[in-house]
C-alpha cells in the first residue's frame, strides 16, 4: 500500500512537471497550425518558451494602487494548476488521485479563476473590471457544465477519482462506451474552449482591450508576474486537454509499470493532446468570435448536452 502510494506520488510529480514543460509547446503548435491556415509561416513552435524566458528577465511593474491580491495572484495561479496537475493522470494512471478527486481539480481551477478575477478588479483599471465581470458571466454557466460532464464519467465508472475513471475505462474497453460518453465529451470540449479563452468565446491573439475577457484581467501584469500568469494559463489549457483525453478517451494510457506500457502511454497522450490542439486551431481558423451576449446560448447548449449525458445514463 505504502509502496503504491510512493510510486503514485513519484509518477504524479513527474507527470505534473511533464505537463508544465509541454504546455508552451501545445500553445506553439496551435499558433503554428493557425498560421498555416492563414497562409503564413508563423513563429517556430518553441516560440512560447522564448517568450517565457524573456518575460522572466523583464522588469516587473506593479501599480501603486494594487493590493496584496494583485501580487499574490500569479503564485496562487501557478500553484493551483500545479496541484491540480498532481491529481490528473497523464501518461500513466498513477496520480495523487487518492488525495483528491475530480471535484477538487475543478475547484482548484476555480480558485485560480477567482483570484484572477479579483486581480483584474484590484488595480482599478477599466479593462480589468470588464474582463472580470465577463469572465464570471461565462464561468457561471461553464462550471456546472463541466461538473456534470465529468460526473457522467463518474457515473459510468462508479468513481470520482480521475485515475480510477481512466483505469476503469481503459481496462474495460468498449463495454463501457455509451451515448452518454459522447454527449459529455462534446459538453466538456465546449467548456474547455470557454475556460481557456479560445475562439469563439475570446480571442487569444487580439490587441483590442474592449473585446477581451481573459487578457483584460491580466493586462496590468508584467515581467515575472506576467510570465507566471501566462504559464498558469497555458498549463490550464494543457490540463483540460489531458482531462479530456484521459477521462473521456483513456485508451492507450499506461495502466501498469511495464516499459512498453509507459512508451505506449506517452505516445498515446501526445497524439491525443495534439489532436485537441488541431481541433482548437481548426475551430479558431474557421469561425469568427461570437458576440458577447450570444455566448450564453452556446454555453447553455453545452450545459444541455451535459444534462442529457447524465439523463441518458439512467435511461439508456
Amino acid at each position, binding site marked *: 500500500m505504502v509502496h503504491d502510494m510512493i510510486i503514485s506520488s513519484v509518477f504524479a510529480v513527474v507527470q505534473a512537471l511533464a505537463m508544465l514543460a509541454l504546455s508552451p509547446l501545445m500553445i506553439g503548435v496551435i499558433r503554428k497550425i493557425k498560421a498555416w491556415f492563414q497562409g503564413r509561416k508563423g513563429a517556430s513552435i518553441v516560440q512560447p518558451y522564448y517568450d517565457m524566458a524573456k518575460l522572466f528577465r523583464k522588469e516587473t511593474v506593479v501599480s501603486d494602487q494594487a493590493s496584496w491580491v494583485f501580487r499574490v495572484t500569479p503564485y496562487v495561479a501557478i500553484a493551483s494548476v500545479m496541484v491540480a496537475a498532481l491529481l490528473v493522470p497523464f501518461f500513466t494512471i498513477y496520480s495523487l488521485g487518492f488525495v483528491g478527486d475530480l471535484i477538487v481539480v475543478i475547484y482548484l481551477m476555480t480558485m485560480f479563476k477567482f483570484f484572477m478575477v479579483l486581480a483584474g478588479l484590484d488595480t482599478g483599471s477599466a479593462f480589468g473590471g470588464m474582463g472580470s465581470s465577463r469572465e464570471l458571466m461565462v464561468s457561471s454557466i461553464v462550471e456546472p457544465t463541466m461538473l456534470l460532464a465529468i460526473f457522467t464519467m463518474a457515473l459510468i465508472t462508479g468513481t470520482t477519482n480521475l485515475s480510477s475513471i481512466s483505469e476503469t475505462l481503459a481496462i474495460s474497453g468498449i463495454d463501457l462506451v455509451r451515448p452518454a460518453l459522447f454527449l459529455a465529451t462534446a459538453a466538456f470540449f465546449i467548456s474547455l474552449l470557454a475556460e481557456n479563452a479560445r475562439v469563439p468565446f475570446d480571442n487569444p491573439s487580439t490587441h483590442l482591450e474592449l473585446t477581451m475577457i481573459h487578457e483584460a484581467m491580466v493586462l496590468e501584469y508584467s515581467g515575472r508576474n506576467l510570465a507566471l500568469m501566462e504559464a498558469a494559463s497555458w498549463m490550464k489549457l494543457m490540463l483540460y486537454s489531458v482531462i479530456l483525453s484521459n477521462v473521456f478517451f483513456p485508451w492507450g494510457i499506461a495502466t501498469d509499470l511495464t516499459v512498453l506500457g509507459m512508451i505506449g502511454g506517452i505516445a498515446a497522450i501526445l497524439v491525443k493532446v495534439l489532436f485537441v490542439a488541431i481541433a482548437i486551431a481548426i475551430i479558431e481558423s474557421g469561425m469568427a*468570435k461570437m458576440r458577447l451576449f450570444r455566448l450564453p446560448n452556446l454555453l447553455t447548449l453545452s450545459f444541455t448536452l451535459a444534462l442529457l449525458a447524465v439523463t441518458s445514463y439512467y435511461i439508456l
Partner: protein
Amino acid sequence: MMPGPMNELVEDLPSILASSVVSSSLEANHLQIEVRKDALAGMAAHMIGHCHAWLISEHAADLRERDGTFHIYVIFALPKGDGIITVMSKVDGSDPSYRSLTPDIYAANWFEREMMEGFGLLPSGHPDLRPLRLYDSWPSGVYPMRKDFDPSVPVPRVPTGYEFRHVEGEGIFEIPVGPVHAGVIEPGHFRFSVAGEPVINLEVRMGYVHKGIEKLSESLPYPRGVMLSERISGDNGFTHSLAYCQAIESIAGADVPERARYLRTAFSEMERIYNHMGDIGGIALDTAFGVGAQMAYVLRERMLSLNERITGSRFLRSVNCIGGVRKDIDMSGKRSISTELIGLKLDFDDLVGMMTEMPSLLDRVETTGMLSDDAAKNLNVVGPIARASGIDRDTRRDHPYAAYKDLSFSVPLYREGDVYARMMVKIEEVLESISLIEQAMDRMPEGQLCAKVVDVQAGRIGMSLTETHRGEAMHWVMSGEGRPWRHKVRDPSFLNWPAIEVAVMGNIVPDFPVINKSFNLSYSGNDL
C-alpha cells in the same frame, strides 16, 4: 454647365433673404453669394432645407489686412448636377461673432468649433464651444489661424481641464480608452459611459495628432504644398494631393493634359483598392476571423507592391504635381497592372465568398453599429459610410474630376447602415475600382504628362473635391504670393467622426472595435 437652375436659385430666394444678398456671381458651375452676416445662418438653413444641398465646409479666412474683416465661407453642393454654392459673409475684425449655424444644421458643429479656436470667431447660439483640437493647456485668446499669430514664438501653457459629457445614474461607469491604444493605430480618446456592457454614451476626443497643416501650408510654395498635402492623411495621400493640385490648377486656369487625367484616375483607384482591402481585412480581424484577415492583407500587400513597381512608391507619394503627374504607365506597366488585377480579382472573389457566407462572421456584422438614414443625413456623413446608410453620393459621379466623366461605373448603395452594409459597399467598390482602372488603361490617350503652371494669381479662390476611399475630401485655396494665403483642408473623417458616436449607441462595448473598423476614419486627417 447648368446656369439655368443656379441662376433661378438666387431669384427664388425668399424676400427676407434676397434683401440681405450683397452680391452674387456665377462662374461655370460655381455660384457665389455674399450675404450680410446676420443673414448667414438663414441663408445656410435655406440651402439645406429648401435646396436640399449638402454642407461641404464652413471655414474662415483672415483678411483683416485687406478689408478689416474675417470672411466666413459656407460651401454647399447641390444634390443634382455638378453645382457648388459658396455663401460668404464678412465679419468685422473688431466684433468677431456671428449667428451659429449649428442650431439649424447639426453638421456645422465641429466646423464652428474649429473656427472658434482657430480664428476666435464666436458663433452665438452654439451649444458646445469646447476646444476641438488644441491641447488642454492652450491659453485662451491665442488664435493660431489668425495672420498675426507667430508660429515661431512658443505659446505659454495654462493649466485647464476638458469636460467630458457626463452621464450619471445607478450602475453607470465610464471607460476611458486611449489616446494610446494597444494596436499600431493613431491616437484618439474614446470616453464610454456604459451600463454593464451596453454603451449609453460615447464621446470621441480628437486633436492628438494636430500638426498645424493649414497654417504650415500658408508658408509653403505651391510645389511643396503638394508634398505637404500627401502627408495630411498618409493612406489617402494621392487623392489629397490631387485635390490640392486641382485647386491650384483651377486658380491658374491650367489645362491638365488628357493623359494625366487618366493616370490620376487610375492611381486614385489603385489607392482605393489597397485601402479597402485593409478595411475588409480589419473587419475580419476584429471579429477574430484571422484567415479572412490574412487573405485580405495579402491582397493589400500585392496592391502596394504593384504601386511600387509602377510608381516607385508603395503609397503613391510624389506622383502628383501641379499641372499633371510625374509618373507614366508605359506598355509594360499596363501589362503588369492588368495581369495583377486579374489575379487580384479572382482571389478577392474567393475572400468575398468566404466572408459573406460565413454565419459566425455575418452574425457579428449584421445589425451592429447601425447608423440610420436620418442620422446619416443630419450628420452629413460622406463616403462609403453614407452609401451604406442609403445616401447616394459619390464625388466621382456627382462632381466628376480627372477622367471620371468619361468612364462608366456604378455607385453601390445599401440602406441597412450596419457594419455589414459598410463592408459590402467597400467590397463592391473594389470591383468597381478594378473595372475603372481597366477602362482608364484602355482609353488613355498618348500625350504629355504635365502642363506648365507658372502663373498662379494672388487673391483668387480655387476649390476641388475628390473622393478618397473614406469619402469626399475638399481642398480650398485662397492664393497669396507664390503660396496659399489660406488653405482649408476638409478630410472626410472630419464629417464622419461624430457619426461614430451615434452608431455605437446601444451596442455593447466589445462590438465597438468592429464598428470603429468599419468606419476606419483617419485621425490625422481630422486633426490636421
